[in-house]
């Protein structure tokens, strides 16, 4: 009865493999598709941790929207086969620094996340107190999000506003040479101004 442990290893190993594929594939579209696979696996991992709202938000926002944005960007850039031009000695120290920071974060996770099932042997326990006080995941998020962290909430609204304005300013280009249909102009046009009788030469 180690189904959740098995699923944890399944999701995490798939996420690792897919993220390796993201950085090693040369075709950018394929690596974006593997990024989607990483997101799906991370959603499964969050579901295993019990954070169901976060997991489905990850699916909706990242897979549904951000990955599509990445695909658009990749397809807009018109990348054919590219070769890496960064030198080996330039890449390596940045990689080591980033990896050590991330690994340090990961060690903090392992302290309270029981990866190998050392703390619980065969017992399958349900903490009925936390299940029974009837506070779902979404309610737990919502109880603090709009009151205690309301500053961050409104700040996120401002960030979204900046993103919206920036996207509109950067990508808007109205062509003036196309003829548009203006319905209110068509409907306001009256008979007297548009039809006139002229005398042709006999």
């Amino acid at each position: 009865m180690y189904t959740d442990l098995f699923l944890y290893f399944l999701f995490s190993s798939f996420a690792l493999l897919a993220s390796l594929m993201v950085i090693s594939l040369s075709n950018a579209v394929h690596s974006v598709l593997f990024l989607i696979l990483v997101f799906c696996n991370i959603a499964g991992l969050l579901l295993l941790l019990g954070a169901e709202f976060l997991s489905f938000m990850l699916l909706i926002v990242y897979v549904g929207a951000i990955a599509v944005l990445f695909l658009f960007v990749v397809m807009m850039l018109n990348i054919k086969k590219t070769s890496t031009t960064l030198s080996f000695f330039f890449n390596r120290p940045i990689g080591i620094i980033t990896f050590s920071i991330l690994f340090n974060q990961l060690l903090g996770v392992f302290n309270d996340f029981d990866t190998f099932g050392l703390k619980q042997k065969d017992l399958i326990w349900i903490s009925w107190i936390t299940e029974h006080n009837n506070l779902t995941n979404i309610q737990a998020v919502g109880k603090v999000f709009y009151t205690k962290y309301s500053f961050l909430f409104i700040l996120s609204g401002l960030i979204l506003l900046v993103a919206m304005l920036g996207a509109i300013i950067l990508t808007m280009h109205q062509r003036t040479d196309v003829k548009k249909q203006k319905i209110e102009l068509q409907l306001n046009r009256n008979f007297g101004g548009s039809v006139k009788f002229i005398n042709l030469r006999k």
Partner: protein
Amino acid sequence: MKLIFTEYSIILIFLVISFILSITIFSLSYLLIPQKADQEKVSAYECGFNPFDDARATFDVRFYLVAILFLIFDLEISFLFPWSLVLGNIPLFGFWSMIVFLGILTIGFVYEWYKGALEWE
């Protein structure tokens, strides 16, 4: 062990079955048919004439604009969802913080409307 696992186990079974089914269909269609590829078969099909160039053509940037506007209002809806669940339990301040949030995004929406960002010529 959490109680939600028992509820999500049905989704897990569904996921496993769909995974097996898609692998089966793909591998059968790969294995059962004769594989004799030639130049004409693997090239991109365009009706009536030889293909001009690669099928991966570049997009217009306006698709990107539509996608990012979709993303922003998608996030707005996902912020509204937990708010609507706990609205009876949080103080009035929580209600007004959401109104301020919606007001900020409405400013962007009005800007987008008057700028004509969603009109497609």
